[in-house]
């Protein structure tokens, strides 16, 4: 009986395990190996030791992209967190039709990234885009948004925030609904106002959620590729080139796959460390199995 169950279980998990070993685990080792080689994708790779990593060390393009990607993360993630928390509080009410509002706020999340980028390309269009039309209407100075090195990255961050707040709102909403009303009742008996309740009860009790949205937000924004590729392709003057875009270009435009692998490996280590932080947090409360 026990054996029969175990055999069934192995048959059930075998496809998933084999698939993930081939397409998720083995790539890590392939990537690590490639990062120690010079490889164009055509001839077989030549082993060159740590040369790629030494090259990265003095590569100003790479460090520029790292700083830019970090800046992007630090613009998107905190603003996203603040706005999504406020939105979660707003939709955490029992009003008729609240589900419709939640759905509208969530709509950008399910919109494909390319489509979202297209819409915002138009919004940002200097001649006929909505933002400049609105600025014009109020007689304010118009700008070039994506065509200006000083505003391009912020403009993409704006789109990203719009697309991402719905997801975090949902997660905060779950957190808010998990807070017992007793806390608020006890506090109001003690004479605490609404603001006081927010800062002394709501914010601290949501701490695990803050950590989760922070780490996941960082992990996602550090991999930013699609919206940059579609909206600016790294321009103007490389002012929006992220690490993700740089790795793609090196690997598939310049066929410098060894070097690209070394770069992706450094990015990967940072992201994996962040993931481990979020994972250990996620599973401290419930045992894994």
């Amino acid at each position, binding site marked *: 009986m*026990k054996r029969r169950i175990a055999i069934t279980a192995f048959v059930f998990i075998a496809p998933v395990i084999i698939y993930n070993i081939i397409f998720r*685990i083995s790539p890590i080792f392939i990537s690590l190996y490639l990062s120690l080689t010079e490889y164009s994708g055509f001839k077989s790779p030549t082993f060159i030791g740590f040369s790629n990593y030494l090259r990265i060390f003095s590569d100003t393009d790479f460090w520029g992209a790292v700083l830019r990607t970090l800046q992007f993360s630090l613009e998107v993630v905190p603003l996203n967190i603040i706005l999504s928390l406020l939105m979660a509080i707003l939709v955490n009410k029992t009003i008729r039709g609240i589900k419709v509002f939640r759905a509208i706020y969530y709509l950008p999340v399910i919109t494909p990234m390319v489509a979202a980028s297209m819409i915002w390309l138009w919004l940002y269009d200097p001649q006929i885009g909505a933002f400049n039309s609105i600025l014009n209407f109020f007689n304010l100075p118009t700008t070039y948004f994506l065509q200006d090195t000083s505003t391009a990255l912020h403009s993409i961050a704006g789109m990203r925030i719009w697309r991402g707040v719905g997801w975090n709102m949902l997660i905060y909403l779950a957190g808010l609904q998990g807070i017992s009303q007793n806390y608020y009742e006890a506090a109001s008996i003690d004479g605490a106002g609404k603001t006081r309740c927010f800062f002394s009860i709501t914010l601290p009790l949501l701490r695990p959620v803050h950590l989760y949205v922070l780490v996941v937000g960082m992990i996602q924004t550090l991999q930013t590729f699609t919206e940059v590729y579609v909206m600016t392709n790294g321009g103007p003057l490389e002012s929006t080139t992220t690490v993700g875009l740089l790795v793609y270009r090196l690997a598939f435009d310049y066929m410098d796959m060894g070097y690209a692998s070394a770069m992706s490996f450094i990015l990967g280590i940072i992201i994996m460390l962040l993931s481990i932080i979020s994972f250990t947090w996620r599973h401290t409360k419930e045992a894994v199995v």
Partner: protein
Amino acid sequence: MKKKEKVKTLILLLLVAVLMGAPFFWMVTLSLTPNNELFSTSQGLFPKEITFDHYQDALTTGGFGRYFVNSLIVSLLSMGLNVVFCSLAGYAFARLSFPFKNFFFLLLLSTMMIPVQVTLVPTFLIAKSFPLVGGNNLLGQGGTGLLNTYAGLIIPHVMNAFGVFIMRQYYMQFPKELSEAARIDGASEAGIFLKIFLPLGKPCIASLAIFTFTQAWDDFLWPLVVTSTNEMRTLQLGLEVFKNRYTADWGPLMSATTLSIIPVVIIFIMFQKYFTDTALTSGIK
């Protein structure tokens, strides 16, 4: 809630809804506005005339239909494969005991941490040197392997560890006695899964289906890497091609964009309850 406060909340809710929804409103409006109005500076919020010319333009030129069908094939196939294999594995991890269970589960979970940039080049190479397909020999040399094929497009989406994770979480909630009673009645292990747990898992399978469909539909980077001809492009890539072809020709561009969003919106509306519930439990547990 007091009436005054209720009105205040409603106004705020509407204001945020306008901010979040306005881009969609403009997208649809632009796709229906004739060109002569589109470029006039006196354009108001609504077009004076409505035209479907842009949709006709988008649908008839440059293989839009082909892109759409390609995306549909890739998304539906990856959805189907995920539903079958993730529910099997999720069920096994939740309800069957077997040696090295924790090890295999952690192995699977750890794959969720690997960023796309790390697997990108190796997955490309694996696809390219897949043995015995696309002119390759047994050692995977000589041809193009799975590059520029449907199988190649689907490869990274076949079995999602996150899918296994949510199925497991879902199946854990049922009492142990349910399986034991069936075993005493002489049901086979496969029978227990097929007759009892597969039907019970429906709500979670529905959200798994939506999740995997939208993920494959949304993907841009992998199709960009793996396809090389126009015939194999997916819709997301096709939109990018459109963008370059119709520079500043926003009408056809926005109608194509609208069409690319419609399938996910339909699926979302149909399964909205499951989708948000699973997002909540899997995100926060």
